[in-house]
């Protein structure tokens, strides 16, 4: 019987394992050095905030794995020998495989800042990160101020977490406005204000120069590049993105770029070795998607696809229409199709933007300047139906159709105030080509 070994028990690896099990009787082993069981990485924040206990982030009860005959192995794989098809663990133990799947995820970026490895300086990705965060920032007596460096999705979550314990937070962001590489201006500005409303000291357009140490090798302050200002703090969160967690594969013979290079079948250059999720880097770009997509949903989709290939139905990874979601403090965000911020915005992409006066709800519709084809939507504070947008985007509806049928896409709870009429009014009063 074939032995399928999956390194990494995150969403990609576990999805692959589940689907392989549905399709086959292969022996399946999932290896993780992080935790005994699969948990939802995106939910770690809620453990710190006290919304959930860690076990609540585990989507399957512990008996699930045995019942489905999926072996779990806790251990750290140090080297991969693809000639003998063998894995060597840090303990010296060995394990052989017939097919190997890397689903090893990411690690937080560090850009060589002086002091980046001091105690009390960390990213937020793993369960271990959560544990050290708990140690360094149990309350506002031990952590009198925290500085977060890098304004993306994890940065704002970390800020929310620390604020839940009344810890003063300085949020240092390189860009002129929050996440404006991705979000159009109006949305980004709305989130800026929402961040400030939560008493987070938002510092825009500033870079970290260095992190200063106290006599015990613990972070005591950060210095800002542009102003030279020194901000005393007890904790520094580095949230300037993540990159594939692949340093252990350096000399393995597996082709690496930023991530593990894979073709459209998620195969690496070595036979019977595959990579999925955050750590996979597409050699051949898929439409206008980035070669590495460190996103929950894409990890899951790669897992679903690769299971087919492993079980004899060799299939290209062909993700459907782009979608994503996040929550910025109290404001939910969903996106379907493509709406560009500052970066990578094609010249033909025009925007229609509507914002509610209370500054917690807005939408941006992207459409083609000439053809008026609807390209995508960002929605903040109003929930919308994935299925409806998925079909509008695949049918290539025009933007007016979307505006006129927006109510069909509404997914807010019953009795919620509806804004479609207002949005339609604003839309019809605006000449279409203005972006």
């Amino acid at each position, binding site marked *: 019987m074939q032995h399928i070994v999956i390194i990494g028990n995150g*969403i990609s690896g576990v999805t692959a394992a589940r*689907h392989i099990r549905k399709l086959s009787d292969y022996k399946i082993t999932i290896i993780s050095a992080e935790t005994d069981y699969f948990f*939802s990485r995106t*939910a770690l924040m*809620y*453990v*710190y*905030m*006290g*919304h*959930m*206990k*860690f076990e*609540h*982030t*585990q*989507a399957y*009860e512990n008996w699930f794995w045995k019942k489905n005959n999926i072996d779990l192995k806790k251990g750290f794989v140090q080297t991969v020998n693809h000639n003998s098809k063998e894995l060597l663990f840090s303990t010296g133990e060995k394990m052989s495989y017939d097919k190997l799947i890397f689903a090893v995820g990411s690690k937080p970026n560090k850009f060589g800042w002086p002091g980046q490895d001091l105690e009390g300086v960390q990213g937020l990705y793993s369960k271990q990160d*959560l*544990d050290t965060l*708990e*140690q360094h920032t*149990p*309350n*506002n007596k031990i952590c009198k101020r925290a500085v977060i460096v890098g304004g993306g999705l994890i940065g704002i979550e970390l800020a929310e977490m620390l604020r839940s314990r009344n810890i003063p937070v300085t949020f240092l962001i390189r860009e002129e406005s929050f996440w404006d590489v991705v979000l159009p201006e109006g949305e980004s500005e709305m989130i800026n204000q*929402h961040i400030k*409303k*939560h008493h987070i000291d938002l510092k825009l357009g500033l870079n970290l120069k260095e992190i200063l140490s106290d006599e015990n090798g613990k972070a005591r302050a950060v210095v800002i590049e542009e102003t030279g200002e020194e901000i005393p703090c007890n904790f520094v969160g580095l949230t300037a993105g993540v990159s594939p967690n692949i340093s252990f594969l350096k000399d393995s013979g597996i082709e690496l770029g930023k991530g593990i290079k894979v073709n459209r079948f998620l195969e690496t250059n070595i036979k019977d070795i595959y990579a999925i999720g955050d750590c996979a880097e597409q050699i051949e770009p898929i439409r206008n998607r980035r070669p590495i997509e460190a996103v*929950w*949903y894409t990890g*899951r*989709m790669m897992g*679903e*696809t690769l299971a*087919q290939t492993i079980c004899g139905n060799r*299939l290209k990874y*062909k*993700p*459907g*229409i782009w*979608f994503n*979601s*996040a*929550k910025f*403090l*109290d404001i*939910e965000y*969903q996106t379907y199709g493509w709406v560009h911020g500052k970066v990578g915005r094609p010249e033909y992409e025009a925007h229609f933007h509507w914002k509610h006066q209370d500054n917690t709800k807005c939408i941006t519709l992207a459409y083609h300047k000439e053809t008026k084809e609807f390209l995508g939507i960002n929605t903040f504070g109003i*929930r*919308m*139906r*994935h*299925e409806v947008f*998925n079909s509008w985007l695949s049918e290539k509806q025009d933007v007016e159709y979307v505006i006129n049928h927006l109510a069909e896409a509404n*997914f*807010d*709870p*019953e*009795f*919620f105030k509806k804004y479609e009429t207002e949005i339609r009014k604003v839309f019809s009063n605006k000449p279409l080509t203005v972006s």
Partner: protein
Amino acid sequence: MSTSNQQSYAISNPHSIGLDAIQKAGMLLALTGVAILFVAWFGIHVPKPEWFLAASLGMMVLGVFIYSRRTYLIHPEGIKNNHVWFNSLSNRGVLGWFLAIILTGFYILLYWYPHVLGYQSGENGVNQGLIALFDPLSIFFKGTHASQWFVYGTLYTVLIITLGIKFIYKYRHNRYQVIRTLVVMISQTFLAYLIPEILAGLNYNDTTNSQGEYLGWYDTDLKNTWPLDYDFFNSWHLDAMQVESYQPIGMFYLVWGIIFFLVLTPIITYFVGKRWYCSWVCGCGGLAETTGDAFRHLSSKKLSAWKLERWLIHGIMVFVFIMTAATLYGYFTNSSTVLGLSIYEYFQKPYGFLIGAAFSGVIGVGFYPLLGNRVWCRFGCPMAGYMGLFQRFKSRFRITTNGGQCISCGNCSTYCEMGIDVRAYAQKGENIVRSSCVGCGICSAVCPRGVLKLENDSEKGRINPTEIVLGNDVDLMKLVNKK
């Protein structure tokens, strides 16, 4: 190691951010109101009970009002579950156990030892202690001294109103929650409390005639229907509804009671699910949603709990059907036995003791801080079981899952008071169609990615098991999901 993952038995919160002066003042005021009840109970003679009662209830309402405003309004609108699992009260810590013991003790006294609370414990059957404190209010409504049930009903209503206000502040951004909670508070206040007391006051119920003959009592809470109201068909109850001087009200309640469960309940449940009852008007549900909100996350989400649930709730439903059939047989044949068994000893008494009192009251509410706020509704209530059958097999209600947006975080499952593993469905892109769902809407509220929506829609496609979630290769989805 992370301390947040460990059970805390400490009274003080390890991550305490403390209460400010206004929160403390509100809390103190409310607790003083509660303390007055204890003072009265322990037999300290209060000269003007009407003033002390008014002060006690007023302080509870005002105190919670002040506390909630301060707690929730200083933060922007949004989900407020910070520190829920650190708090001793809401995480089965010392305070949680303490409250559970007090509540359980109260119910035991209420059901089986009311004289300990002061009910007719004085000379010539005069009320004393806690019960006597409520005499003035009872006399105001209906001219008679308070019973333990009057005291219970009053406190129950006050709890739903005060903690309903707290709930509304907490979820003020969510109109479904606000409207639902207002309806819960109004149903309790009018249907369960004021109207019955007024009807008794007008001598349409619970009356002694001029010859000193007691005419009987029947349930005048419009929505407390059989089989939740398990003794509806007991002969004393049917007789009371037919007392001449209670007419036409008595007959109205008899007809209404039958139409309610036989016709209205299936029809409304078909259109909107059982939520219209369980989380909108029901008294047990009302207490669970308001007072019990702080404990909703304590329900077990294990598969084994679901298995137990299905046996228990349906077992009890069958029990109440048999008990009622025996009762009606006895009523119409004028017999006190069925198949040689005493209807009272073998049917009514065990049900009343085990289910009516021990389960729904003592465990159902007493164990809020240990097992969550819906133990009774989930494992016991025959009305919930009855409506659950319609909800599962013949209803338009479901919780829709929004395509592929679920991130398996677990907030929905954690905060499901009925212990439904909502995430198990959501992460598969599958709608949630479960007999036990009471439609409180909290899963949808706590979802950080806008994945869940309670709605009534056509029956077609309501149950939609999927293997591959929306967002992936359309051909792959077709291939796998068609199976």
